[in-house]
């Protein structure tokens, strides 16, 4: 593990060690077919999101007033201009999906970063100091967890006003206790290990002990949890959009697209089916990656 004789651990061996660890993780990860498929799909999505302005066939908010609710191209009445058809006010669905990928991925990334950072800090503080700090933080987490997460997010968004960013904040807040609990548990089990005691004896300060000694050794479960949260953030944001509290018009967020087209359930299947498939595929890809990472990082499963 970390160098125990010198107060400042030599950087080179640690880096090498980490590199070896990464290589090992990749070795196990790449042996899972599902995980690789998930990763490929995810990378493709990221590329689409990044390149959306150049590869999308149309402006996602431009309304073709002569082409309301055009079916996809393979269906009777389809228009070759619009591969996946148009929505209720003549916007190209394919272009909206491509631009929408940006928002969904952004939601996932922002929510995970916010809740990860918040959860890690709280969890570290609680697990490291114990006592009243721990009690206070964990009770607050208990309170958050005592409410159904979607309901809590919904009330929060209503309080701070509907909108994409506020929805992200609310979701991050309700996901964050999971990170805090996980970090705390890991910190508690690590704190009494030898290497921590040695570092402390060597005179390392609180901050240093928490962040550079203990934290790196608790990362594995957090990474897995982060991947899972990424997908649930996308689902929750879509659900908030579905309940009318997510992205504001004319932003092409997938959940909102779905909610807007609910009334077409019986006469324009494509406006409701296609965004749903996009959500499902994205979430599935991320979950596949999450499973792969968990298997690769979990020593128990590797052994058997």
């Amino acid at each position, binding site marked *: 593990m970390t160098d125990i004789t010198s107060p400042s651990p030599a950087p080179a061996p640690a880096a090498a060690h980490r590199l070896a660890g990464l290589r090992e993780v990749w070795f196990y990860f790449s042996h899972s077919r*599902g995980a690789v498929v998930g990763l490929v799909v995810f990378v493709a999505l990221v590329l689409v999101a990044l390149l959306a302005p150049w590869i999308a066939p149309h402006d996602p908010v431009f309304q073709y007033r002569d082409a309301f609710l055009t079916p996809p191209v393979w269906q009777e009445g389809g228009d070759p201009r619009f591969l996946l058809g148009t929505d209720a006010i003549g916007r190209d669905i394919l272009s909206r999906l491509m631009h929408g990928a940006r928002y969904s991925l952004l939601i996932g990334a922002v929510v995970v970063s916010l809740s990860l950072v918040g959860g890690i800090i709280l969890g570290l503080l609680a697990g490291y100091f114990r006592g009243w700090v721990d009690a206070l933080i964990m*009770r*607050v987490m*208990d*309170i958050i*967890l*005592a*409410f*159904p*997460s*979607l*309901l809590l997010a*919904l*009330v929060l968004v*209503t*309080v701070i006003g509907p909108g994409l960013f506020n929805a992200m904040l609310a979701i991050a807040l309700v996901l964050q206790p999971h990170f805090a609990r996980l970090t705390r548990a890991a910190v508690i089990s690590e704190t009494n290990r030898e290497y921590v005691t040695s570092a402390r004896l060597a005179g390392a300060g609180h901050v240093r002990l928490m962040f550079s000694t203990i934290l790196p050794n608790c990362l594995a479960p957090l990474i897995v949890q982060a991947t899972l949260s990424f*997908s649930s953030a996308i*689902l929750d944001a*879509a*659900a908030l959009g*579905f*309940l009318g509290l997510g992205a504001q018009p004319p932003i092409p967020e997938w*959940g909102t697209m*779905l909610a807007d087209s*609910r009334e077409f*359930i*019986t006469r324009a*299947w494509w406006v*409701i*089916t296609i965004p*749903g498939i996009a*959500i*499902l595929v994205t*979430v*599935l890809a991320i*979950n*596949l990656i999450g*499973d792969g990472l968990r298997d690769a990082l979990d020593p*128990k*499963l590797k*052994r*058997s």
Partner: protein
Amino acid sequence: MLRFLLKRLALLIPTFIGVTIVAFFFIRILPGDPVQVLAGERGVSPERHAEVLRQLGFDLPLWQQYFNYLGDIFRGDFGTSFASKRPVIYEFFSRFPATVELSLCAIILATVLGVPAGIVAAVNRGKWIDQATMGTALVGYSMPIFWWGLLLIIFFSGYLHWTPVSGRIALSYYFKPVTGFMLIDSLLSGQKGAFLSALHYLILPTVVLATIPLAVIARQTRSAMLEVLGEDYVRTARAKGLPPRRVVALHALRNALIPVVTTIGLQVGVLMAGAILTETVFSWPGIGKWMIESVNKRDYFVVQSGLLLIALIIMTVNLIVDVLYAVINPRIRHQ
């Protein structure tokens, strides 16, 4: 054991107080109030507005309202709904059975299908049946639930006409609710076919609500089984030459089920209060949907007491799960 239980209960007290604070202040920070909602486009004169707020006690300082609220709760008074003018507790219990019925059915379905699926997958680890089961489970786990519900409605109700679109029982059956659980009430009513009808109406919402717990339970069962199958005593049993089926049934399953039971228990809590999306899609008259509508109507008493009751239920279920877990697994008690 008693000490453990007492400790857990003591921990609930600060959480409970925190929950009342959150429930109380949340709805009050929301801009807009119930009087305006009721008035709609027509509006309400400022004098009338102030008068109604005063009648409801909303003109008092917030802290005073909060303590009145706490006092009322300890006397068992959860206030009156502004929207319906009926006691919140009455409104709650006229909807709660619908949610419980749906959640229980969903969790039963998820367990009945999920546990065997997980076992089969674990026993056949790496074979196609494992991959197929776990692949399906992952798709289920990734499903946007509201979209899934809509798809099922389009297909089974709209296209095949196999299932009703919404409701709890065919309207030709009529009886006074006794327990509020349609399945039980339909049996008690003694009317022919009523039970079947209630079941028929439950199928689709149950399937939708069960989708995610089913996936979670199947995955959890599989990994718990794998873990146990790798343990020494199972290996010993195998080495002794016991038939594999017996090994699985006798030794592995019992131990593997401990974390699975916990998972199921926690899912119950999640489901009971978290059926919001399913209730919305199927117009199921449960508490999740009621809470959303009440937030929109700014029905203060309903939201504050409803949130509190829901939180109490989740806390209770989690406590029971914790205690059960401690009973099964003594190591936990000493942590």
